[in-house]
């Protein structure tokens, strides 16, 4: 039930505190991330679960400073392995990206360069960070393709991205991300675009490599099923805030926040076919005009007056569990 992870007292690999991200344009300001705090220990998998617009991908990109600098306002602190990411110089950032921290994306076709072979792209990363010759780097690329179980890896080195199937492209991208032995892997919906039979293969592979290499991992997904397969802990995001956090088994068995409960009820999974699904009414708030209180209150069946006045503070009802809801413990009524 623990997914194999043993909590330790080792210092956190990632510490994010009160992270706020705003996108400012001439007409409006979108409050994409509003005070997010979390930490990830070495070797731990944290899944950030949320729907579109919840701020999950923006949070992930902020960790590597991949957001467009001109129109983005970031505040708070991000520490990865003790380094203050928001204070790094451009040269230090280049060393961080692909070295200490690397990232895999949803769509490998747009993340890989179409005019270079798979082998060249992986070798380039290795040469850049390790300062080795091309021959050595290509040998390492071959090792990596074998590690991610690409069949006939030697000949695949010379393939261009368009010559590979979706599953193989995703494996090639994972190989590139792992090429320099990162301590932190950031994964942005890496299995969402894959077919069901391929998705489970890639998930099992990622889980195995993550354990073997002992990487801390932040895995962003909208899919509870994917989270149940890979997470040690889950952080549920809504309207730019973490509304609930806890160990995966506890959250799936006993969700505390009404949004998490609603999300689980909405996820079609063996429901009674003769009944309607218990859908959450309404739609997520406009990030340009967030309500002053709990952002979920307008859709929440338990909402009371106190929910509308101020953003709920985090509460810790059980060890390792957090929920931002003032109505915790109020029984859900149908």
């Amino acid at each position, binding site marked *: *039930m623990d*997914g194999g992870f043993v909590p330790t007292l080792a210092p956190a690999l990632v510490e994010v505190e009160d992270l706020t991200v705003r996108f400012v344009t001439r007409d409006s300001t979108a409050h994409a991330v509003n005070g997010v705090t979390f930490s990830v220990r070495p070797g731990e998998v944290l899944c950030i679960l949320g*729907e*579109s617009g919840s701020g999950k991908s923006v949070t992930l990109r902020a960790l590597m400073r991949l957001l467009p600098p001109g129109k983005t306002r970031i505040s708070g602190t991000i520490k990865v392995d003790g380094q203050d990411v928001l204070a790094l110089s451009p040269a230090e950032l280049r060393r961080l990206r692909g070295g200490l921290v690397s990232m895999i994306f949803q769509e490998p076709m747009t993340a890989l360069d179409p005019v270079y072979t798979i082998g060249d792209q992986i070798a380039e990363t290795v040469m850049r960070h390790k300062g080795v010759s091309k021959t050595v780097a290509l040998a390492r690329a071959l090792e990596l393709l074998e590690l991610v179980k690409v*069949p006939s890896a030697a000949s695949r080195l010379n393939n261009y991205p368009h010559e590979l*199937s*979706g*599953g*193989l492209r995703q494996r090639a991208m994972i190989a590139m991300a792992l090429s320099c032995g990162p301590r932190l892997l950031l994964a942005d919906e890496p299995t969402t675009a894959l*077919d*069901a*039979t*391929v*998705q*489970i*293969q890639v*998930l*099992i592979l990622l*889980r195995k490599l993550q354990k073997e290499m002992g990487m801390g991992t932040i895995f962003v997904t*909208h*899919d*509870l*099923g*994917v989270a*149940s*397969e890979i*997470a040690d802990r889950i952080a549920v995001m809504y309207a730019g805030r973490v509304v609930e956090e806890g160990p*995966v*088994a506890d959250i*799936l068995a006993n969700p505390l926040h009404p949004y998490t409960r*609603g*999300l689980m*009820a*909405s*996820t*079609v*999974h*063996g*429901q009674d*076919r003769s009944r*309607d*699904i*218990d*859908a*959450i*009414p309404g*739609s*997520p708030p406009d990030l340009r005009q967030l309500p002053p209180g709990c952002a979920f209150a307008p859709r929440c069946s338990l909402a009371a007056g106190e929910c509308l006045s101020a953003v709920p503070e985090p509460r810790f009802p059980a060890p390792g569990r957090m929920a931002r809801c003032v109505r915790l413990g109020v029984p859900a009524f149908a």
Partner: protein
Amino acid sequence: MDTVEIDRGGPAQPLLIAKDLRKHFKVKGGAPGAVVRAVDGVSFNVFKGETLGVVGESGCGKSTLARLLLHLIEPDAGELVFDGDAVGDMRGITVNALRRQVQMVFQDSSSSLNPRMPVRDSIAFGPYVHGKTKAEAGRIARDVLVKVGLKPDLFGPRYPHELSGGQKQRINIARALAIEPRMVILDEAVSALDKSVEAQVLNLLRALKENFNLTYLFISHDLSVVRYISDRVLVMYLGAVVELGPVQDIFSRPKHPYTTALLASRPSMDPARRIEEPPITGDPPSPINPPSGCRFRTRCQHAEAVCAQTQPILGAWNDRDSHIAACHMQDPESGHSLAIRTH
């Protein structure tokens, strides 16, 4: 639309019969004669009032199939019969008459709406081109907006960019309903929506089906959603039907190894019971040059010599069984060592 489309063939007549539909696309810049066998001889019935779910992975031809059913893509071969009338036949009905009775909702809710038209005009356009006056069409648009749960005065005058994804998909459903079709083809209609919105739209689809006596063809890659909404399920692999049957049978005792693998690939939803070994390895092969014999044999753990030699027939080998599959292991005469001897 003055001639009210009544139930012509009677309740036992399938609403739609597809016979041996085929569509091959030429490969641009490929070897001479290279074709993508997108849909390669697909036959099935859709019965009145049912929801037929269609599942399969990308490239299996499920979206091409949907377009062939409405002649949005011209089939190379095959026949369509709608409520007893052959489509495009002199004694049957025209493609236009078919489209008046069968409507479609697509996955991408934005690109299927005109960005320069208020949504009420988009909805009214269908009834108008099918012969209603402008005033009548406007009234119909108001009515169907109410039916899909949107206030006509609030949402009717808006443009697509002023609506959320879920609201846009409601508009697309309203537009399909505006010409009072008997059947709606839903091609991944809820796949792009967030889970909480997907659930709302699924509830709406179920209510509309009940209220307007509709028949659905529901195409999706999401097995859980298909299980929830379908009465029967059709499983496609590389342009061909591999299994077809009642939803309980498909999910509780699948006959085709591909269906078994698809079901086993669903995440467990339980961290204590994670999937440790992938049910099948590799990606689906290219439909340009599908494997000989059974198309699934390259990924099938039970493949034998016969699977490469002969294409399995889609059948039940038992007249009373409505659950059919195209697998040599189901055929007592096939010569496969695991073939079922008695049915």
